[in-house]
Structure formats: C-alpha cells, structure tokens
C-alpha cells in the first residue's frame, strides 16, 4: 500500500530531511554566520556553483560580496543548505564539502 502510493519512500525522505535539518542545519548556519564576509562568500558561492553547473554564480558587479548579501537576504541560508544536500528516495543522503566543513569547525571550536 505504502509502496503503491510512494508512501514509504516519502516517509524515508521526510525522516532524512528532519534529521538533516536537526543535525547539520544549525551547525551550517552558526558557522557561516561566524565567518567574515569574504570567506562566507566563497563558501556560499562554492555551494551554488557545484549545484548549478549550467549557470554558475555570476559576479554581476564590482562587488560580488554585496551581490551575495542581497541574494542571501532574499533566499535565506536554508536555500543554500538545500543546495548543499542531496536526499535520495531511499532516505540516504550526501552532503556538500562546505556543509561537512561547517560541522568540523563547529565541533572543533
């Protein structure tokens, strides 16, 4: 029944998202917010570029950091977090190295 409706897979995915949101996301946000903007920009840009291979981050002006600030203010950190994780239908997941680095820094500090 569950499989027929795609229910079990959906539950697995939802469980994984709940786990990711509970474990990785707070560390991701805390560490990114602690970074100076020049470093924060690089980390966020890396996530963006690795997720959007066909449309890389454009440095549209002479002040790419300001561009990033504006984009972030519209999209929020969760938008980047979602780009930095891949959740499969079976519930397994992969995280971007930036997310992994955030966990490392969080625990190290």
């Amino acid at each position, binding site marked *: 029944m569950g499989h027929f409706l795609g229910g079990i897979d959906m539950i697995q995915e939802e469980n994984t998202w709940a786990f990711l949101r509970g474990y990785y996301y707070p560390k991701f946000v805390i560490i990114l917010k602690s970074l100076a903007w020049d470093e924060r920009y690089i980390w966020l840009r890396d996530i963006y570029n690795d997720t959007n291979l066909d449309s890389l981050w454009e440095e549209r002006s002479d002040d790419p950091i300001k561009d990033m600030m504006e984009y972030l203010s519209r999209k929020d950190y969760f938008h980047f977090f979602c780009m930095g994780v891949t959740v499969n239908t079976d519930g397994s997941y992969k*995280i971007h190295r930036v997310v992994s680095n955030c966990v490392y820094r969080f625990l190290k500090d």
Partner: protein
Amino acid sequence: MLPKSIIKYIRDSVKKTPLKKVEASVLPIINTLVSGKYASGTGVCTKREIKGVSTKDSGTDKTLISFGISDGENVVLCVAHNCNSDYLAGKLIDSKLEEVDVLVRDSISNGHSLLISGCFANFNRARIFIVDKVEKTEDTHKSQLSKKQVDDFVALCKKESMNPIDVLLDDDTIWSEFYADEELKLAILLFCLSPFDKGDMIHIGIITNPGEGKNHLVDRVIDPFVRCRMAGTGKLTTFAAMFGAMSSDDLSSIELGLLPKMNHDRIVFSEFQTLNEEVYGELLNVMSDGHYSIQKGKLDVTRHANLNMAFFGNPPKHYDEGEHNKREMLQAFGKYTYQIISRLTLIFAKPSLNNDVDAPIKIKRKIRQSMDKEFSTNGNQGVLDDCRLFLREYMKYVSKLLPKVGAIEPILEAAFSAIETTPQFKEAFAMRGPTDYRKWQEFINLVRGFARLNGRDYVEDNDLMAAMDLFQKSLITMTETFPIKALNKGVDYKQMELHKKIIEKFKDGNGHGSGSVIEINKYAKSLKLSTQWNTLQKITLEDGSKLIETIGDTLFIKNVEWDTFLEE
C-alpha cells in the same frame, strides 16, 4: 540541578525495592576465615587442579578438586571432593562433584561468575574453603530494577522534559565530586555500560597533563558507580597479571589474569605510558575480539574478556605545550600506537579535561567541597549514595538492551559515509578499502550506546546525532594529535625523535641538518638508536626524494613534516 520529583523517585525506589549494592565479592567468605561459619561469595574461577586420593581415611579412587575463586581483588582457595569425612569434612556425592567441576571449568573458560557456599576447615596444615554448593550466577550483572521501574523512570524524565542521560550527566548525581566537560562525561558513561558481546565493547583513551584528576575520576566517579579495576603501572602490570600464567604447582593449569576476571566489566589502565609494549601487543586481540588464547605446553586455551578498557595517561616527559606539536602527546603507545588508536572508540588527547573558561573555578570548588566532606555530611551522602545505587542498577538494566538500528539504516549509513569522506577520517584511519569496517562497527555501537543510556531498545535520530558529535570530536582530537601517516607507514616515535635530535645537533643554518657520516653514525650509536637510524636512512619522501641524502662523506638530513613520509 535535578527536579525534586526525580530525586524522590530515585530515593523511593532505593528504599522500597530495596536496592542494595550487589557485586562480585569473596569478602563475605574471607570474613569467616577464623570462625569457620557457613558463608557465600561470588567470583570467577581463576585456576583448577585435580588430585586423586586413595587412603584408608578417604576411601579408594576419590577425587579432590582445588580451585581459586577471585572477585578481582581477593582470592579464596576452595576445595570440592568426594572423600570420606574421616579424611576431610564436606563430602559431595559423585554426581554433585562432577556438576561442580563442569561449572568450575565453564567459569575458567567463559568467565562466568560462580556463587559458592561452604565453610573454612583445616586440611594438611592449610586453611581452605570446603565447598558445599556451587551455582552459576548472573546476579552481579542482573539489575535489581524491574522493567516497570525503568520505564517509569524514563517516563518521569520525559515528563520533566529531560532524558535519562541528563540525569546521568547531572552534577548532583554521580558527577557531584568531579568537574568535567560534557563530552568527557558522555565518554565515561558509555564506558560504564557493560559489554556482553564483542560488538558492545567501548574502549576510550584520555591523555592529559598530570594533575588533571584522571585518578580522581576513577576514585570518585567510576569506581563508586560501576565495577571497575585499575591496572597498575609499568612493572606491576605484567603479562601474567593481565592475561594469566601457568601454575607453578600444576603445569596443566593456567591461572586467570585480571582481564578475564573483569569479563563484562571494565578496566582502567592508568599511566598507560609506563606499560610494557608486549602487554600492548597482546591487548590488541582482546580489544577487538573480546578473547585471547594462551598456548602452554600441551594446553591451548581461549579465555573470554568482553570488557571495556580505558587508557588514562600523560604526555611524554619532554612534551611542552608551548613548544611541541600536540601529536607528541601520544608517544606513550609506542610502536603499537596506530593499532591501539584504531581500536579506541573514543580518544581525547588534550592538555586539559575542560574547555570551559570557568573550569578552574569550578574544579577548585569541587576539590574544596570534597575536602570539606560536603558530599558525606548534612544528609547529602544519602542522596548521593541513593543516586549512585539507583543509576548503577539502571546501567545494569540498560546494558542488556539490544537497540536495533535497522529502522534508521539509510540515514545511519549516509551519516557514516559523510564522516568517512572527510579528510580527517581518511587521514586518521588511512583507509585502504572503500570503508573502514572496524570504525563502522564502533560507530553503530556508539549509536546503540546512546539509545541504551536513554533506556530505549530502539534508536532515535537523537542517538545518532549525539554519536556523530562525540565520534567526530574524537576524530578531530586524533587528527590533531597523531602523525597518522607516519605511524601507518611504520615510522615510530623513536625514529621521529632521533630525526629531530639529529636536526637539532647537526643544524645547517637553513632549518635542515648536515654532518659527516662517521659523526652522525657515532651520535646515533651514543643514543643507542642505531636501528632507528638505519631505518631513517631508508625513508623516501612523497616527492620521491630521500629523507637523508649522501654526497661523498656528508649526510644531508631534511627537516620535513612527518605526515609526508613514506617508507621504502
């Protein structure tokens, strides 16, 4: 500060059940040595000797079984026999004696505890304990708490918006006499679970500066809480004392050492840096398999030692926090460093046990309170004793739970993969295959450990999160403390030390070293490190060049980071 409702529940449970401190002990027997009164005690059989007796008094074709029962601290020499009473009182019928022998042999080989009853009597100018009854007992590891009591406790914690782990971590309970960071407390709590299978074992390593209170941690937290023995230092912790040795009286029997005596319990190796390397070598099997084999003469025996081990030690004498890399802290494991850390589920190598900026004040307060006996006066002792007693039984109960991790398998595997792919993990465990199965098993065990501490037979996301945090914090310590690559390639600390000394003595002004072949050979010989010197000369760096180049009669010694070394 614990809610009053939880303290009340704990104290009521202790009083109503009533809970009493139950642990393997032969002291009740020893206390009747003079009176010869009937007594009982619990321990593991450490040796067994058989004697055939045929005298006028004993009757013909009789058997006398001598065996030792130890609780880890004391030993009682026991005798069971079927001789007539003119020879020795306490005759057992043949079938009963055979049953005793089966239990004794089973205890020696599997480490099962035995409850023995009888009384002392004189025999051949010796005072021996004549055994009347022998039973296999699980009392020492069986909790006195019922399932309902544990469930009620967990439910009460939930009602108070807490987990049982929060109670176990609280400064008013088992930690009232010791101040430590939460990560260290968690590691100790996991260590205090009893392993009943080799997959349950949790070994930890703690290396800090002297005076940080490692022994105090054992005396005031671990020992009053769970059954734990501390292995002596250096020469006192011999191979025979730890593993066992052939009896000088009977070459066909092997006396058990401390490890099998502590089956399902735990041992702390304090000042482990003084241990003999041979002892480390043999510990490796026990740490991973939970048993070991001894071959002596015609005997080939396997002894079980499913136990948690903790290694507490100090950095080497020459370690200077200001000058040296933290990696030098762990020279103490000697040539087995890499193998030992692979088997340690958690390791914390840092100068201080506390990261909290207020730690010095809090530690001083704890020391002052301890010296003023604040924990044993004004009614506090009763609360502390009750908490220890209740939580001790709680730990026994939850140690036997078997939390299944299948329900969160996809997340668990992905979480471990995420850790495995970090540069820190790859460096720490020098992965040779697609995955490190030992670390995988240790990781699952941590997750299960957290579920157990929370009194559950199933795992939740929170258990996984807690395990991930602790596992990765330990991983960070490791990668910051050990020259993993060098150790993995077989470059040991003595070789590293020699290299450093040569660079210092023969410095060329550019940060490297150079000198004549004869002089450096002589210097290495004077340090009694000629073997290490020969090995150093064979080392090739990752770029393909030699660590030590020879041009004519001169040697040029490069000063490089140890992590870049490869041995030929």
